[in-house]
């Protein structure tokens, strides 16, 4: 199977591998998996005070297409608002990397991962903004550990 140059580049030189502090209030973490192939993907975003995504990191255990898809997404979301980042579609990822049809599901995983990271970030900021809930925050965090 012939893979595109962009895909091979992202696979061989993945961007933004690593982790951000998942307990930090300005970090959203998305953890998703594709059980049929045993892939697991973690994608994190750090949102600045201006509402723009200032950093993104990923860690993926899976095939080359899953690694390339998550690497590409971390590159794309930087500098975007979370609303903009939420519009990324798996078809855009698949098209950019020229994924073969059997690997389309890897781009679905990356789309679901960024959506999950955004949802996690939103849930955190909603908790902080809501004074009624912020008092019980420490206990709920301790319980979630």
């Amino acid at each position, binding site marked *: 199977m012939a893979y595109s140059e962009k895909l091979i580049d992202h696979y061989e030189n993945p961007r933004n591998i690593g982790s951000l502090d998942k307990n930090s209030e300005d970090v959203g973490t*998305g*953890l*998703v*998996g*594709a*059980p*049929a*192939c*045993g892939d*697991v993907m*973690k994608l994190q975003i750090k949102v600045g005070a201006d509402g723009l995504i200032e950093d993104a990191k990923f*860690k993926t*255990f899976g095939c080359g297409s899953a690694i390339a898809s998550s690497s590409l997404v971390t590159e794309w979301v930087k500098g975007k608002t979370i609303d903009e980042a939420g519009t990324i579609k798996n078809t855009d990822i698949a098209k950019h990397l020229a994924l073969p049809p059997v690997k*389309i*599901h890897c781009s*679905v*995983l990356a789309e*679901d991962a960024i959506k*999950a990271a955004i949802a996690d970030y939103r849930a955190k900021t909603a908790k902080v903004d809501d004074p009624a809930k912020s008092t019980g925050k420490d206990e709920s965090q301790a319980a979630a550990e």
Partner: protein
Amino acid sequence: MNHFARLGLPAALDLEPAALDRAYFALQRQWHPDRFVAKPPEERAKASTEAAALNDAYRTLKDPLSRAVYFAELKGVELPADGKTIDDPELLMEAMEAREELHEAGSAEAVHALAAKAREDMKNSLARLGSLFLRDDKPAIRKALLRLRYLDKFAEEARARRMNLERSSA
């Protein structure tokens, strides 16, 4: 016809491997293409369809995990199909940490120890499935099978990693 019925076996989570082999080889002889060379085309076609279905049934039921997944489907437990994602944080965090540990294991011995632990875990988890089916606890069955899928993948990755490490140290 389901795979168990095709092999003339009762649908069950646990199968005696020898009984499965016996049933398979007897039926395989019965539908072997060599016995149909002189037969009319419809019969030849039927024999080849039967033989293919038989192989499929045997492959599915031979491996304990694929048999458990198949048995669960018969009982109405749906697992995510190809390309479908899950977001169970507990399960995925465990899978992620296990894969990180494997990635960081620096010697064939360390990888071997991790693989042995995963195999033991799989064996115990498969053994516990029976009681979940007795209670018909579908969410628990689903979760246990998903976890087993990740353990299976871990064991596969561990084998590959061990071969790499052994090759580079040879």
